[in-house]
């Protein structure tokens, strides 16, 4: 349904009906803003980045080859925009070492509120080196779908898997207490 609507809207926009682009924005605003939010953890900036992604999509609509789904093309374009934006203006993120140090200073970290814990893990993900961060973010954005993450990153699946593995390894070494305690509780 959405694919048909996307195609119809794209055809109309390319034929000169700019207003038809609104349909595309309405359908994809949620996913694009949420993807941006995962990259920057800032709602206002996420909307700005998503707007830029839509503008780039509008400019480059003719370059969408129909052999891939519109969503695949749009997500890849958006991921590129977000990564460039973060390179241009890096977000204020806490380094992994700082997070680990903070955890060490809290003897009763197990009493951390669940929300705090999740927030720390997310901050830790954002503090990963860029290539691992992008792979981790897009993997979870695509609901743990490696091929989809690979398409958004424009990388082979094997590379994405390797980066995911390495990203997790880094997090495991930096946040052993936080991640280990939760695993123990589950066991």
């Amino acid at each position, binding site marked *: 349904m959405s694919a048909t609507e996307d195609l119809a809207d794209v055809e109309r926009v390319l034929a000169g009906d*700019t*207003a038809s*682009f*609104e349909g595309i*924005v*309405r359908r994809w*605003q*949620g996913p694009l*803003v*949420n993807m941006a*939010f*995962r990259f920057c953890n800032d*709602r206002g900036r*996420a*909307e700005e980045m*998503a*707007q830029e992604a*839509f*503008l780039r999509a*509008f*400019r480059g609509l003719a370059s969408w080859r129909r052999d891939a789904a519109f969503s695949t093309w749009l997500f890849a374009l958006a991921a590129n925009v977000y990564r460039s934006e973060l390179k241009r203006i890096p977000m204020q993120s806490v380094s992994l070492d700082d997070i680990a140090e903070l955890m060490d200073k809290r003897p009763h970290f197990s009493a951390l509120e669940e929300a705090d*814990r*999740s927030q720390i*893990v*997310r901050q830790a*993900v954002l503090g990963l080196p860029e290539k691992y961060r992008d792979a*981790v973010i897009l993997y*979870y954005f695509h*609901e*743990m779908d490696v091929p989809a993450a690979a398409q958004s990153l424009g990388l082979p699946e094997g590379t994405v898997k390797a980066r995911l593995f390495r990203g*997790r390894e880094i*997090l*495991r070494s930096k946040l052993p207490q936080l*991640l*280990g305690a*939760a*695993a123990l509780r*589950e066991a």
Partner: protein
Amino acid sequence: MNSDFDEIVSQQDEIVPSSGFVASVMEAVQQETAAPAPIPFPWKRALPIFGAMLAGLVMLVAGIVELFRAPEAFVSAKTAAFSIGSVLSAADKSHTGWVALALGLAAFSIFFSLRFISGEK
């Protein structure tokens, strides 16, 4: 560990775009459409300049090559008694004139390129 990690990272709160988001994007799109089309590069006017640049480059390279192939012109100029005549003679032997012409053409083309960029006529 992975399942715990998966659980934490997957459960990221979904945010809802603000109510004015679509309007804001469409406004930006309309502005983009209304903006005048970018001025095409003046290939016709630039071609002679590119030609001159290329010719200048070729002459410069040829001059440098010549310089290395016939260094004796400089050696003799150094060892000989200093006189304007000997300098001119050495310069003539090493095709300094061509090199100077190439440099002049390059400077000329850069000057005109900068004028095109700045929009002056």
